[in-house]
């Protein structure tokens, strides 16, 4: 009996021994796992290579920000700035439901377009701020000298400026409308928010004034100009990453919005210093030209390799705005495999100054969709890679600088048409069309005639590039040059089943469209609250400060 008990105890001991061996053999490091798909926060700026990756990552936020449910639709600058900027204006026709909210101006604080433009622009701004903070902690080394670090900072501040301006033109009244009005701008955020604690400090901030926003934009761009490189190689990267010229070019646009024509000229002279064509930048600002072929900056390949594009958002087959966002998908005909959602409006097509002989009406630039699948509207051919959607999204090109300059010079000069202003205007126009009405400076009786021609030229030249709403906004308070009394223009109805009858090259057709209620969406006056986008509900629901500072009417 005793022996048996001993046996039992021995067995228990053996078992316990075996068990403890197994315990001790356990993997001590089993729980020491690190993520393999991402870096930890601490190591993101730990080497020159990673710093470079972080800088490129800012552009990602600009090119392919998020959309509802995690989709990518090219917000804010990979495509959406073009689509929203165009559809808020009258020069395109939205043929389907897709952009109806923007096109018809039925947005409210919950509609996705304004919501995600707001969200992705601020996401871009914080990403820039995070990188700026990270760069501040980097010590210069062999491959990463202080100028290289400063150049990275310049890229961050360039993108931040671009983002604030996009916010300003959609969510704020134009600069010309009392820019110092309290709360007229958007909140300016300049510090990196990487934790709950750093978030708290920013939460108390009110909207700044429009003037403060523009001051900040210019401060960023002035800095960027001093530190950004003049050129980059290869050419594709020069177009897709910020350069000195890009900072200056954006400044010409900003000053134009501010009505500060003298500064447009001061800045513009850096990029087009000559008194007459051909124009080229001053020393230190790269080698941009206006190519003889107006199509040089377009098509998937052209958009990545031309002398005219100063800054574009890079897209490629693997990283683009997707079938529900990419410009070639949305702006190409159904017949060619695109979605055929946004065409060129008959209202622009039939303008007397958009001549039938204009290259920009030719088969190189435009194509009509088939009735059937599509609605037989005219579509642009600026974006061509319908299947892979790799076309870059244009932001700044040399033609805009020339037209910005031309307008500023002429406005500075006043009554008489100015030779340099005309030369710049004519450089853009004459490469596309021979027009007895505009070919010579003598064709313009007054300075205002020339300004009007320049503004018309912008509509033709930049159609389907998203600049229209910016111009409508900045001209809204301009008694002479505003359209539709400064409000949101009337547009051709998106409910028409077949548009072919309305591309007549006859201005009388426009009159018919605009006087037949079933054929148009009515204009809205400048005072209408829908001239501005609302601060989205996603913001006001979480931010009591901004909830109190919503744009009136929403």
């Amino acid at each position, binding site marked *: 009996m005793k022996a048996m008990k001993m046996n039992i105890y021995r067995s228990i001991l053996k078992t316990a021994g075996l068990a403890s061996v197994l315990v001790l053999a356990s993997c001590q490091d089993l729980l020491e796992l690190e993520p393999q798909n991402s870096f930890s926060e601490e190591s*993101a700026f730990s080497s020159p290579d990673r710093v470079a990756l972080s*800088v490129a990552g800012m552009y990602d936020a600009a090119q392919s920000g998020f959309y509802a449910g995690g989709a990518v639709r090219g917000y804010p600058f990979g495509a959406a700035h073009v689509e929203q900027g165009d559809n808020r204006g009258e020069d395109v026709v939205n043929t*389907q439901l897709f952009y109806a909210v923007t096109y018809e101006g039925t947005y409210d604080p919950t509609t996705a377009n304004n919501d995600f433009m707001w969200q992705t622009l601020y996401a871009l701004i914080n990403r820039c701020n995070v990188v700026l903070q990270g760069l501040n902690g980097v010590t210069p080394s062999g491959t990463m000298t202080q100028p290289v670090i400063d150049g990275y900072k310049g890229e961050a501040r360039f993108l931040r400026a671009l983002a604030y301006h996009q916010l300003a033109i959609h969510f704020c009244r134009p600069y010309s409308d009392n820019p110092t009005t309290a709360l007229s701008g958007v909140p300016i955020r300049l510090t990196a928010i990487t934790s709950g604690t750093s978030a708290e400090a920013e939460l108390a901030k009110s909207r700044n004034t429009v003037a403060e926003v523009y001051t900040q934009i210019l401060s960023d761009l002035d800095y960027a100009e001093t530190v950004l490189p003049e050129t980059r190689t290869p050419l594709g990267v020069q177009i897709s990453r910020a350069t000195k010229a890009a900072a200056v070019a954006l400044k010409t646009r900003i000053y134009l919005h501010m009505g500060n024509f003298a500064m447009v000229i001061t800045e513009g002279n850096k990029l087009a210093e000559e008194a007459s064509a051909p124009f080229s930048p001053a020393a230190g600002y790269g080698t941009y030209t206006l190519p003889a072929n107006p199509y040089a900056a377009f098509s998937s390949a052209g958009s990545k390799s031309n002398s005219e594009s100063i800054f574009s958002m890079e897209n490629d087959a693997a990283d683009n705005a997707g079938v529900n966002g990419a410009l070639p998908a949305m702006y190409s005909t159904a017949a060619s495999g695109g979605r055929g959602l946004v065409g060129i409006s008959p209202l622009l097509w039939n303008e007397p100054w958009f001549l039938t002989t204009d290259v920009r009406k030719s088969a190189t630039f435009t194509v009509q969709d088939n009735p*059937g699948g599509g609605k037989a509207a005219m579509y642009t051919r600026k974006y061509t890679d319908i299947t892979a959607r790799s076309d870059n999204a244009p932001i700044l090109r040399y033609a805009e600088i020339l037209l910005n300059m031309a307008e500023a010079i002429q406005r500075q000069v006043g009554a008489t048409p100015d030779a340099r202003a005309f030369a710049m205007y004519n450089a853009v126009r004459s490469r596309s069309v021979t027009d007895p009405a505009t070919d010579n400076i003598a064709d313009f009786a007054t300075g205002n005639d020339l300004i009007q021609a320049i503004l018309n030229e912008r509509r033709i030249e930049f159609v389907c590039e998203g600049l229209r709403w910016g111009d409508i906004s900045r001209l809204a308070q301009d008694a002479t040059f505003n359209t539709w009394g400064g409000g949101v223009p009337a547009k051709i109805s998106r409910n028409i089943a077949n548009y072919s009858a309305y591309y007549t090259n006859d201005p009388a057709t426009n009159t018919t469209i605009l006087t037949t209620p079933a054929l148009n969406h009515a204009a809205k006056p400048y005072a209408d609250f829908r001239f501005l986008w609302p601060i989205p*509900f996603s913001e006001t629901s979480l931010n009591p400060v901004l909830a109190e500072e919503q744009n009136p009417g929403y």
Partner: protein
Amino acid sequence: MKRLLLSCVVLAFMFCTVQTQAQDRTLTGRVTSTEDGTGLPGVNVVLKGTTVGTTTDADGRYSMSIPASGGSLVFSFIGLESKEVPIGELAEVNVSLALDVTQLSEVVVVGYGVQEKRKLSSSLSSVAGSQISQLATQSFDSQLAGRAAGVQVIMPTGIIGATPQINIRGINSITSGTFPLVVVDGIPMTTGNQSGVTPTNPLSSINPADIESYEILKDGAATAIFGSRAASGVILITTKNGAKNKGKTSIDFSASTGFSEAVSTFDLLNAEQFVEVANEKLANAGLAPAAFMDADNTNTDWQDEILRRGSFSNYNLSVGGSSESTNYYFSLGYQYQEGAAVSNAFERLNFTSRVDHNINKYLKTGAKIQLTRSKTTGLNTGSNALSGNLAGGLKLFPNVKVKDPNNPTGYNLSSDGQVLGQGANTRSIDNNYTNQAFVLANNKFEAEESRILANVYADFTPVEFLTFRTFFGIDALGNKDFLSYDPRHGDGRGSNGVVTNSYRQTPLWNWQNTLSFNKDFADHNVDAVVGLEYQKQTFESFFGQGTSFSDLFFIQNGLISNTYVNQFSGGGFNQTAYQSFFGRVNYSFRDRYLLGFSARHDGLSKLAEDVRNGDFFGGSVGYIISEEDFFKNSGITNVMNSLKIRGSYAEVGNQDIGLFPYLGLYGSARYGTQNGIAFSQVGNGDLQWETSKKLNIGADFGFLNDKITFTFDYFNNDIDGNILFVPYPPSLGIPGNGINQNIGKIRNSGMEFTINATPVNKGGFVWNVGFNFTTVKTEVLETFRNSAGAWAEVGAGSYEILARVGEPLNVIYGYQYAGVNPGNGNPMYVKGDGSIVQRNVNTGTYSFYDENNQTDETNTVGAALVSTDVSAGGDRRILGQQLPKYYGGLTNSFNWKGISLEVFLRFSGGNEIYNQTAQDNLLNQDFTNGGKDLMKSWTPSETNTDVPKMWINRSAQVNQTGVAISRFVEKGDFVKIQNIVLGYSIPRSILDKTGNFKVSSLRVFAQVQNAFTFSKYTGIDPELGAGRDNNATPIFRTVTFGLNVGL
């Protein structure tokens, strides 16, 4: 297995003495099993009213001396129904004993062991594998619906491969994972969809025919031993082994075949109605008619193209047996089924091999390998997709043909191939909807799953009350996807064809070492287990994609090199691991006072180093009152023969919280052709698992010698520290606009009732009833504070709020509909202050409604609906709750002379459903087809309606699309006759004539699943979408015929 255990119990308590009296003669006989006719050893045979008796031998035979005449014999055996037989002058009495269903689950599987059901003081439900094994089902989990109290299973779509929602005692987290932990023979299984192209349910890799039993652990005490993984309950699955076929080999074969079809379909406009309705939409907007009948008067019901009569077939073969030292089980299964949605199918082949062997009296070892290959074929079911089977299919023109011989594709397409051909209509279909017939015939969505579930173990039993076990298991799950979009039309057109091949695997290994102890000390019994567990799982995936194909030939089965212009690839890799210690002690005194305690220490790789270890404890007490003498001696035993009360409390956790939710991360951020990284997640080093505090109080009653059993439980689960992605204003620009934080509290409380009864058991006719009923209330107690200091809402969307303090989870949230303005057909709404506004169906402008001047729309100031809450001066309010307040099931089974009929009902109710299918699809205002309800739209001559005036392209204005309105909120109550099973077992007397080729059992059956649904819900099925029905594919009814043969 169970019977073996039971015989041991019986043998232990066998009568020790046999009285010697004056005896006159010898009576012999044999006791057999009603179930399979085999001899039953160890059955007590007693002469009634005496102590004269004996037990049967190994073959079920007995022999005993009895008085010359008179009296009767009582045959009894635990787990079987007792039988009393008058002897008379007989010399031989043979009886067969049937299983006593009320005592079937004498021993139940619990975490890391088994336990006598009688001594349970925790709450769990057992479901016998046989209840599900013969059903026509892809996966067992969907069949658990209605089977057990406290277990809610919702099948939100009719697509085969979709994983049902399983909520054990409510939804146990606000936003983290809520799927129960599923443990198969000790291995925690990977669950959840593995495919990127069509839903797959990894639980379908287990053949229901191989499953012996399901145990669903519900309360804290039962689940605490699973620690941080237990918050949503645990489902333990025990697969079959050969042990029950003592000394022989049994071969079972089953086959069934049948068909499936949609339970119901939509009432769509036919061609002529479409022409009328579409032209009225246009006319109301001042536009000319555009819809016309074609020369052939074509009338197409597109539902005929997207739904079908599918097929079902299932075959299982198993061989099981045991010898003195070894038992074995092998099985082979094959299933093929086609869903009622065109293109949807599932095919599975599986193979199981299991061997257990006693090396000597100290050592035992065993291994099991289960291999499964399955293939799920899917389709585009996107609820907003242009090519979604219902989203698009229901909108297609009914007055055009499906096919067009003149089109190169053979289908009716527009000349450019972009959209459905418009036939005689003069306007193209709005919004670019595609020809569904083409899409379904040419696009491919396939997921092929391979799985190995295997384990080996060794038991060392130095003394009979102590066993050390080391157990090692793997779950190697891999899934290969194939997606192909035809370039000619539909989703592939924009890319000139797309092919994606991807592979994902999630191998898991698990190593457990346990020490079990079970010993009686006089009146005391101690049953304990302690153990260690390690687990690691890897998640890895990659894909390759090509677009712009050279030829259709190359997009059929996989990526073919150099047949496409653009190529893409991607992938990811991550790991997770656990390291745990656990233990459980169950103590009972005099078989009536029960005490249980369990604990687990879990270390998780998912959390920051200094907070990653946590302890979870649970305890329970039970009192079997009916074991007390005062109970036994009272007269109550004539009515109530058993009574147990019990209570438990535990704290468990939920670690289904993502892989590295606490870390600040920089993820990939590619910019065009340039590589980049960017801040992608804000860190929170304090993050912990969610904690679930579970309280359970219950009682078990047995009446009339267990003819009726009744179980009652009250539960209360407080879930603290929910991990919420606390939102920050988007203008701060932080990644995802939020930070993970342990915040928020919810409570699930409710009651469960289970009744099992045998109302009739007479003359061979047996009627059994099983009924369960559960009430559950899920209440949000705390979320996070918004910046104004109030409780913030979590997951506030356009249709529902996931969590609002003081409300249940998942409430429908929107505007109150006030019907149609009879004067002009505008829809009307009730504002927060009670005033009525109307919305112009054309312009969308809101104006106050004036009953005395109905057509006046000028009073617009302040009329627009405001999206904030009524309590905040806005106009949105709670319109209903999506989670049922009660649910349950009722089984009636009838057996008579081998004929069996089972009717299984389940029900659920107290909830509301948002019928978004009606709002977005059936009542759409575009130039597309819709439902018949459009014909009820307001017209100047038909003003008494609640369907507003139609207006082309004004769905948002007419139906308020994009937000919820009470017009589309409906009651979700339903009763379903889930299954009707009719079977016939060929009597033994006939089977015995099969000679050498001995068939021991033969049963034929016919069954209908999803037979009938009774509900006032106007959509297809009140369970679709689980509260928001948005173009979900209809549930289908399956009719099957089958047979089981046992050799």
